């Protein structure tokens, strides 16, 4: 049930967290971040909050639940190969025979994964140590290294506040090395840097801080020495060093690894079936290519909980019991879950096809569920909003009930899962406070997060989402009923369990439909970051990981950058002023393929090629070795030094091309999914490189690059326009003078003035080749599509029928038009959609205008279904400064019935009702059901003027011109209005109803009070009767279709429909049709029963 959920982070404010984690995020352009986030403290050791304890042993209760036993392996002869899913580090004791520090504690990397046979693996990787660089001060030589080592070691150890880990050694090595600074071209001569290797990740921050602040060695001043790469996460650093990318395959060759067993030392720490140790330089990390692009049979657990809340109050873990937990476990690549079960509190009738596990005590239920999770040993945990609701609720509830050992849900036996808070800031999604729970070795993969990240939707409830993607409604039970069902008998609890199971099943189906797991896995492989960080972190980490990998092979190191929070702006992409209008002729569209990446490649834009002011003269470069960009920055040309970013982009785009080619020939549907996910991941990654250089609060912003990229983009759009308009002219023998009617970022729309699709495509293709030839490789202008017809409303607002082949259109393409705005009523989106269809597909502008008028007339005559008028807003907090419609309404509803009124976190649906003049809008909101039941009149004017008029005028102005407003909003069709008399309020109490003639609506004359028609209309009785019956026909059909649909949707013929899913488009309809049908029946009845 998602009405119990809240998507904002409000509930977390009173949280139980020990500390917050701040993660950066950004999107393409950067900027706009809150400056405080820049003060990201590098290498903060996150593991400190882990509470140590001893978790329960794994139990084996069911063959179906447990994983199959692993094969017997002999480390000396056998190799072990697994797909790694999670990489993390912890502090452990050094293992004899392993490289690295020999005095504890030392950082150990843990990789979790699954073999192709489906066995879970925990692999401890030893000997990898964190390091960073500082630029060497003048005269610092090899012989000084030992002194610095000793001095720094002492300082760092002295700096530790309470040395509870008994650290005896902090700095492991100090070396003088030669590297190149990534930022700015300074020739190929390497500079001297000091590489400082420390024992623990947290000493990186400590050591670099001490170097900055304190005098370490009298002879040298390190305070001015710039630090390099001291802000890189240890896990990422490790992955870069060992060439491990997210979700790739790891092979441990025979003889290189040790297997932990019952009597081994160290003893196994994990719940995995195979636990092994290996040195960091002894394993093989396979590139995810060819055979190694396969995916292991991961176990994905999707679950959903139900809580029995109190009337009118959002469930609180301290008060309200968990009554059911439904679980579905699927193996990646299979179509049906192989475990389906539900844990219930109190007896529940069996469900065929699903296992029902009943418990009398809630403690027992929770305890058994935790044991179930440990036994099933899932690799991925999913569900809907589990991160912010289900998981924290379960943990808090278990803690409140003192369920022993519940919180050991991860794969490490003695680590508890605890709730932390995390703030994710991104331009794309705004600031979100999320809760985060650790499950060592299991990846929490909340479907809601995926949707929030990747899809722009009107509503994110599970109902709305499953309707959107699966065209299926989900029965929804109002939370006030859940407790009643729980308190009923085993059959009502069974009914509840059915909902719960469905809520656990839907996320799996959606993940499959959206190919989310596969796509994210490919993204992890392409960008080299762990799977989990794709959901919890932003774009930057992905680019950073690739940049580090590339830099390392070339001997570059990255300066650590502290944000100055500057407001320096660079000019954005250009837009050619649109020539607005409705184009009935084909409009050819020329697109730059991957524009920004190709600019960076073509002009060799990179950190490593940037010429800082003065560097050109200093290095004595000639003009033809340097390229000056339109943004007035200089970069050296590729023959002098090929940039890293262009190389990254090249390999990304080449890989994308390969994936696309493989996709063409691949037949196997699962492999096709993988390939398609990959090519998409590659495309997104290529585009985010540009964003990385522009993110001003990023790890390494470089406005010279991003500014130059957009500047090139602008000149290219301009140039394309000129080329096309000067070449395609009548003078040159073409049908017409071509006109560029619009251009934006990476595409140009051309009107060649031809009538046929074929010809416009031919010219488009020709023009693309003609212009491409004038650009530097690999910038390429491509002809992709023709819009025919095309409605150009304004900048970034247009719609057209999209053709890639002359036979049939591919789709209707709309940009920037009100179809998904969440604060609109569905009427707006649907009307816009219908009008666009008529304009574009049926090519019938008059029909569109007529349709539009018809709907406006229907609106004014109260013939529009109320579900079309419902506006929905989330009740996020009650103390808004300004009065808001939905808040006022929630208060009003609470007075009517506190039990069913919306609570904090609920979404409040409302309609705007007619009221006295000058009544503020926030007082006019009313509950749609109340409106239906009491025939409260709708404020049609509000919908016409506030909701419909602007978007309608926008699309019709290009067609009707200035008279659009008078035609659409003030025409004949707006004259007739129906006023509904309300059953409540105002004068309703004083009115009496008098019989009127069904034919002419006049009051009945004396003596005719019981008749249906007045004497004047009586001769037309047959006709008038047929009219009434005809209206009844329509209502009857709708009634039957609506209520049988609900019967089907709830999955039972013999039980009453109790669903109250207000997101469902038929929720209000079915109520309204009931009332209308009763009214209509009364009218028909006035003619008397058909008696013969």
């Amino acid at each position, binding site marked *: 049930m998602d009405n119990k959920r809240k998507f904002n982070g409000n509930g977390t404010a009173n949280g139980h967290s020990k500390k917050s984690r701040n993660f950066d995020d950004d999107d393409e352009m950067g900027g706009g971040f809150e400056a405080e986030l820049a003060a990201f403290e590098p290498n903060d050791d996150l593991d400190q909050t882990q509470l140590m304890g001893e978790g329960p042993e794994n139990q084996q209760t069911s063959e179906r639940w447990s994983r199959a036993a692993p094969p017997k392996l002999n480390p000396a002869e056998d190799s072990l190969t697994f797909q790694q899913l999670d990489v993390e580090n912890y502090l452990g004791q050094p293992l004899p025979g392993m490289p690295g520090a020999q005095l504890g504690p030392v950082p150990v990397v843990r990789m979790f994964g699954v073999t192709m046979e489906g066995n879970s693996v925990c692999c401890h990787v030893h000997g990898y140590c964190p390091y960073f660089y500082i630029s060497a001060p003048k005269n610092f030589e090899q012989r000084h290294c030992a002194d610095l080592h000793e001095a720094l070691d002492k300082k760092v150890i002295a700096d530790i506040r309470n040395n509870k880990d008994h650290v005896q050694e902090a700095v492991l090595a100090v070396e003088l090395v030669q590297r190149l600074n990534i930022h700015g071209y300074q020739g190929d001569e390497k500079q001297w840097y000091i590489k400082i290797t420390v024992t623990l990740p947290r000493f990186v921050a400590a050591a670099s801080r001490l170097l900055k602040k304190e005098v370490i060695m009298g002879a040298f001043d390190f305070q001015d020495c710039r630090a390099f790469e001291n802000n890189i996460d240890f896990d990422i650093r490790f992955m870069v060093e060992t060439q491990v990318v997210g979700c790739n395959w790891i092979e441990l060759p025979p003889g290189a690894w040790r297997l932990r067993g019952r009597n081994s030392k160290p003893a196994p720490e994990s719940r995995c079936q195979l636990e092994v140790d290996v040195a960091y330089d002894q394993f093989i990390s396979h590139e995810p290519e060819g055979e190694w692009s396969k995916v292991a049979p991961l176990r994905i657990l999707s679950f959903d909980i139900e809580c029995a809340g109190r009337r009118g109050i959002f469930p609180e873990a301290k008060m309200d019991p968990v009554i059911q937990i439904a679980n579905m476990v699927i193996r990646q690549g299979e179509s049906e879950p192989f475990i389906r079960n539900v844990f219930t509190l109190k007896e529940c009738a069996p469900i065929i096809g699903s296992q029902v596990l009943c418990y009398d005590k809630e403690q027992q239920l929770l305890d058994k569920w935790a044991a179930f999770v440990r036994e099933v040993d899932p690799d991925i945990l999913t569900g809907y909003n589990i991160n912010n609701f289900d998981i924290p609720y379960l943990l808090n509830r278990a803690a409140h009930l003192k369920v022993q050992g519940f919180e050991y849900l991860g794969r490490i036996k003695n680590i508890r899962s605890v709730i932390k808070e995390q703030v994710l800031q991104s331009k794309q999604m705004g600031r979100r406070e999320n809760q985060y729970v650790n499950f060592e070795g299991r990846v929490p993969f909340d479907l809601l997060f995926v949707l929030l990240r990747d899809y722009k939707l009107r509503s994110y409830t599970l109902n709305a989402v499953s309707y959107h993607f699966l065209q299926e409604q989900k029965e929804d039970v109002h939370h006030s009923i859940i407790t009643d069902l729980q308190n009923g008998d085993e059959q009502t609890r069974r009914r509840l369990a059915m909902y719960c199971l469905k809520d656990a099943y839907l996320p799996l189906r959606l993940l499959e439909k959206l190919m989310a797991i596969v796509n994210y896995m490919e993204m992890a492989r392409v960008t080299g970051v762990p799977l989990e960080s794709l959901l919890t972190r932003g774009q930057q980490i992905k680019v950073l990981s690739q940049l580090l990998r590339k830099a390392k092979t070339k001997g570059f190191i990255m300066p650590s950058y502290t944000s100055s929070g500057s407001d320096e702006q660079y000019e954005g992409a250009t837009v050619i002023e649109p020539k607005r209008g409705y184009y009935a002729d084909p409009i050819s569209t020329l697109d730059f393929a991957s524009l920004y990446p190709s600019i960076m490649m073509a002009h060799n834009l990179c950190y490593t090629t940037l010429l800082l002011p003065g560097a050109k003269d200093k290095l004595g470069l000639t003009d033809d070795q340097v390229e000056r960009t339109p943004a007035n920055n200089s970069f050296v040309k590729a023959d002098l030094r090929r940039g890293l970013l262009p190389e990254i982009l090249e390999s990304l785009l080449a890989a994308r091309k390969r994936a696309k080619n493989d996709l063409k020939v691949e037949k196997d549907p699962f492999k096709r999914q993988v390939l398609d996910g990959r090519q998409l991941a590659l495309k997104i990654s290529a585009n985010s490189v540009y964003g990385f250089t522009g993110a001003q609060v990023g790890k390494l912003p470089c406005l010279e690059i991003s500014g130059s990229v957009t500047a090139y983009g602008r000149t290219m759009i301009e140039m394309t326009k000129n080329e096309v308009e000067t070449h395609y002219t009548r003078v040159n023998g073409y049908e017409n003078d071509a006109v560029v009617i619009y251009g934006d970022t990476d595409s140009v729309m051309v009107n060649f003035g031809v009538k046929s699709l074929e010809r416009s495509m031919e010219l488009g293709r020709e023009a693309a080749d003609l212009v491409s030839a004038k650009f530097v490789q690999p910038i390429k202008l491509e002809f992709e599509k023709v819009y025919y017809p095309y409605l150009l409303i304004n900048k970034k607002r247009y719609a057209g029928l999209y053709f890639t082949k002359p036979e049939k259109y591919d789709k209707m393409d709309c940009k920037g038009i009100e179809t998904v705005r969440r604060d609109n009523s569905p009427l707006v989106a*649907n009307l816009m959609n219908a009008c666009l*269809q008529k304009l574009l597909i049926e090519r019938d502008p008059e029909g569109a205008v007529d349709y539009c008028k018809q709907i406006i007339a229907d609106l004014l005559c109260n013939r529009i279904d109320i579900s079309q008028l419902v506006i929905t807003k989330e009740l996020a907090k009650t103390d808004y400064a300004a009065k808001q419609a939905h808040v006022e309404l929630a208060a009003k509803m609470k007075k009517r019935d506190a039990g069913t009124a919306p609570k904090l976190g609920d979404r409040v649906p409302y309609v705007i009702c007619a009221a006295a003049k000058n009544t503020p809008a926030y007082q006019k909101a009313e509950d749609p059901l109340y409106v239906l039941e009491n025939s409260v009149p709708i404020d049609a004017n509000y919908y016409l003027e506030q909701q419909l008029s602007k978007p309608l005028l926008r699309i019709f102005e290009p067609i009707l011109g200035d008279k659009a407003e008078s035609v659409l909003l003030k025409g004949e069709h707006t004259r007739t209005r129906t006023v509904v008399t309300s059953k409540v309020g105002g004068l309703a109490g004083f009115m009496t109803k008098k019989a009127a003639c069904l034919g002419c609506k006049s009051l009945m004359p004396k003596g005719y009070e019981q008749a249906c028609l007045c004497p004047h209309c009586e001769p037309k009785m047959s006709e008038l009767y*047929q009219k009434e019956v005809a209206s009844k*026909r329509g209502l009857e059909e709708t009634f039957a279709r*609506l209520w049988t649909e609900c019967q089907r949707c709830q999955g039972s013929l*013999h039980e009453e429909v109790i669903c109250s899913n207000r997101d469902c488009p038929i929720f209000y309809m079915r109520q*309204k049709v009931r009332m209308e049908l009763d009214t209509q029946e009364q009218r028909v009845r006035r003619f008397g029963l058909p008696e*013969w």
Partner: protein
Amino acid sequence: MAKRLECPYENLSSAFLLQSSDYQKQFFHLYAHRLAEMTRLLKPLAQSKWGKEMPIMKLCELRGEQDVHCIIIGTIYKHQQHKPSILRDISEENQLAPQPQRQNYSEPGDKVILEDELQRVRLQGDHIAGRSLATGIVCAVKGGTDSEGFFNVEDILFFESGPQKSLTLKSPAKLVLVSGLDQLQAHNYVDALNMFQYWLSGSLGNSKDAASMVRLIVAGNSVRSTAVANVPTLQVARSQANANDTVQAVSQLDSWFAAWAQALHVDLMPGAYDPANFMLPQQPFHKCMFPQAGRLSSFQAVSNPYSCRLNSALIVGTGGQNVADLLRSTGLESSLEALRCTLTWGHIAPTAPDTLACYPYIESDPFIMRQCPHVYFAGNCEKFETELHVGTGDKRTRLVCVPSFSKTQSVALVDLETLDCREIKFNVESE
């Protein structure tokens, strides 16, 4: 007018007449009553067929996954991918490519589910031919559950309608069945209609035959035989106000019926597209629509479905909606087959209310065939088809698919003594 045979008649359709109506009710009552009554009727049949040892169980008694052999009585639900759905119709996402209405949406992949009072189970087995089953049938199945949650059906049993009274009266009475007069299109076959009228009156050299024709049943779609084109809008229902052409047609029909009722008794049933209510049972036309014919005692409007006893024969029939809906939702190939199926299932319209609109009854299911009819017909079929069906216990039922007159210009003539039936054609060109 020739002298006509007199023969006893009794209208048995009172169960189909709605004295009052309440649309606050839902459809589960109807299913529940259907299941309860059919269970009562099926239990003794199941025990006599499969023996008393075989337990009759509820799905909720099948605890867990053990393999229990038993009998389950429940309602069939067919899960069909392409079943018409109002949700899909109004889905804004689908507006771009409206799904064409499918003539037949039955597919091999349809899932057959059995639902008893509380629970559901998927059925599988050789007897479960999804293509010949429909939602709403109540049946008994014998078999056992498997670990995958399926119920493996070894045998299946339907109610096959109630007992049949024997034909007692021996008189050569004949019944005329016509449907689909489609007055709006009648200009295309007005000659055939005139011929039909002559034939009814015995003026086509058939005066002897005509004397034994005691009753004419007009089985629906007299005014219209195709749906009015639907304009999709954002509203629940746009009032279908332009009824002028049908008003004209109705008064035309009034004249025909007034003429025919001079010759014999005429029972007029409404049909799927007539100006009557939409849900089954359709209520009789109002008297005000037929001022001329209504004056004659030999003319009456009746409900659809319609049931009467004539010359001791029990006659049951519909305007054909039940058969047409089955042809859409199952793999049944002909109207006759579908008609026979409803008889063997013991239910006139099992797909109501699921895909066939019907009134939300709360206290009974009037469509259960509590008695086995002698003549069982469905109107508005593509062509004339007939068969003498012999059921268990030697129950004999004449099945008649009454052709649509507008398509075939023919009617069906049933001999109520022998239960013989033949088609009479009035197609001017072909004769």
